[in-house]
């Protein structure tokens, strides 16, 4: 069978405007996220020093010099908000990537090897019964606070959710005729798992990854806010709100600038998730 005789597959032309019109949530979320990511990456070019304290300039309202005002130590709120995007986005992406990767491996093995399944799933059930923020608080309070600790602490409660999803897909696919054919054809187990089963888990996993990203950003901010997260000297949105708590009535901008940035990013990630779900899982389209 030569390439020349194969009928040319007609690839539909990509119409950007039609794509935008058909996927408004996906595009809106993606645009906000890209803008935020650019802000985070180019923070040193856009904003001033987020750490420099100017006690004489405490709690100044937004002005031409300090676009979003200053906080109780005279630090520029705009600079801190821009730099805060770095930690939030980094934690969100890392947690989503790692927990999906680890959960995918465990889920594939648990779904395929029935003996491992019972033990692994009972362990996962136990982990899932512990509310995520509490588990993270316990993990962080036992180690020295650092961004790495926070990432690991948020990841651990997310992994079981991925494992469950992957396992359910594996269980539904492993009896499919094409997998049986591969087994009968003598394909090695690893090849069956990676080549024939794993690809079916991708569409739901991509959607799940966005929701994990959103939840990781929220949990990181909550941990920092509670004083069990990123060390207070690093500007994060949670830390900013925590250190400004007492100044809500005098300087509301110190709380609402990071708060709204946080809400906007999580909203954008959720919009991307909803948009991807509508595209990748047509069964649910226009339902949820």
């Amino acid at each position: 069978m030569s390439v020349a005789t194969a009928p040319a597959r007609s690839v539909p032309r990509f119409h950007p405007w039609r794509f935008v019109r058909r996927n408004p949530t996906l595009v809106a979320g993606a645009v906000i996220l890209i803008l935020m990511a650019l802000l985070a990456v180019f923070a040193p070019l856009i904003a001033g020093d987020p750490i420099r304290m100017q006690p004489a300039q405490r709690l100044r309202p937004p002005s031409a010099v300090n676009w979003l005002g200053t906080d109780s130590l005279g630090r520029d709120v705009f600079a801190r908000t821009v730099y805060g995007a770095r930690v939030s986005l980094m934690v969100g992406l890392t947690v989503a990537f790692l927990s999906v990767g680890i959960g995918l491996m465990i889920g594939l093995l648990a779904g395929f090897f029935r003996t491992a399944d019972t033990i692994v799933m009972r362990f996962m059930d136990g982990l899932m019964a512990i509310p995520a923020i509490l588990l993270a608080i316990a993990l962080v309070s036992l180690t020295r606070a650092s961004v790495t600790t926070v990432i690991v602490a948020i990841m651990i409660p997310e992994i079981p959710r991925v494992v469950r999803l992957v396992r359910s897909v594996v269980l539904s696919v492993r009896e499919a005729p094409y997998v049986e054919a591969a087994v009968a054809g003598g394909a090695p187990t690893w090849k069956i798992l990676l080549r024939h089963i794993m690809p079916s888990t991708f569409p739901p996993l991509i959607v799940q990854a966005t929701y994990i990203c959103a939840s990781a950003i929220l949990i990181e901010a909550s941990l920092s806010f509670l004083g069990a997260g990123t060390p207070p000297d690093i500007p994060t949105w949670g830390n900013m709100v925590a250190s400004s708590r007492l100044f809500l009535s005098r300087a509301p901008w110190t709380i609402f600038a990071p708060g709204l940035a946080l809400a906007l990013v999580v909203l954008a990630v959720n919009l991307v998730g909803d948009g991807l779900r509508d595209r990748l899982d047509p069964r649910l389209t226009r339902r949820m």
Partner: protein
Amino acid sequence: MLAYVIRRLFSTLLVMTMVAVFVFLLLHLSPGDPAAIIAGDNATPEAIDGIRLKLGLSDPLPVQFVRWIGHVLQGDLGVSIFSNEPVLKLVGQRLEPTLSLALTTLVVAVTLAISFGVLAAWKAGTWIDRVLMVISVVGFSVPTFVVGYLLIYLFAIELRWLPVQGYTPMNEGLDGWARNLVLPSMALGLAYIALIARITRASMLDVLSEDYIRTAKAKGVADESMLLKHALKNAGVPIVTIIGIGVALLISGVVITETVFNIPGIGRLVVDAIAKRDYPIIQGVILIFSGVYVLVNLLVDLTYTIIDPRIRY
């Protein structure tokens, strides 16, 4: 049915055992000497030895686990390192504010969320549906503490309708108690409402496309009766499931809401314990909260047969 209940109870017990093992191992699997971690950075060797002795940390792990789980089963969750009070007593003292907040929020949020969900499904595709679903996505994205401070700023500082923060015990008057709970409940409930409303809408839409609903409509059954009697009851199982799963949101949210509104409940107990590295309190509260979560979901599973008599185990 009985066999199902017994099987379900057994698996609940298994999950709780796993939770206990995990909560126990947390302290021992973390890098470093647990006694030194609990003692903090500036502890003297004597203080570290004192803690090791007090918590029995030099025994082999299985011995420690059996002793610990034995105490837990007798209702002994250990002693706070900082105040030397039993953890269970400290939790008991903080129970009323947390229960008031959580139960009020649960009842109000579930009522509102199901109404919103039913309304959105009934008016699917109209502006009412769109507005409700946009609010629901936003409600799910704004962190609890930001909602809390927004509410305080609007309703307590600017409009002065409600107290800024704090808690009034029930026996000092229901009026003050209720006024202090309005804003915290709204902050705590928003994400929960958003979650349940979305699932209610989806589940109702599934049911509303069924033939028997069309038959009911053709027979001229009134809208309210059709929605509530014919549809909602059949859409109930996923809704009740998400109410149970969503309790995790309430539990995590309680910790944050109590910090924002300065409510002296169990959540504040944990947050204060973080700063003091009072590990027995953190451990005890995790165990209690996880237990509540597991029990709620056991109850949810058992209600399936009541909601939908077709389900027989």
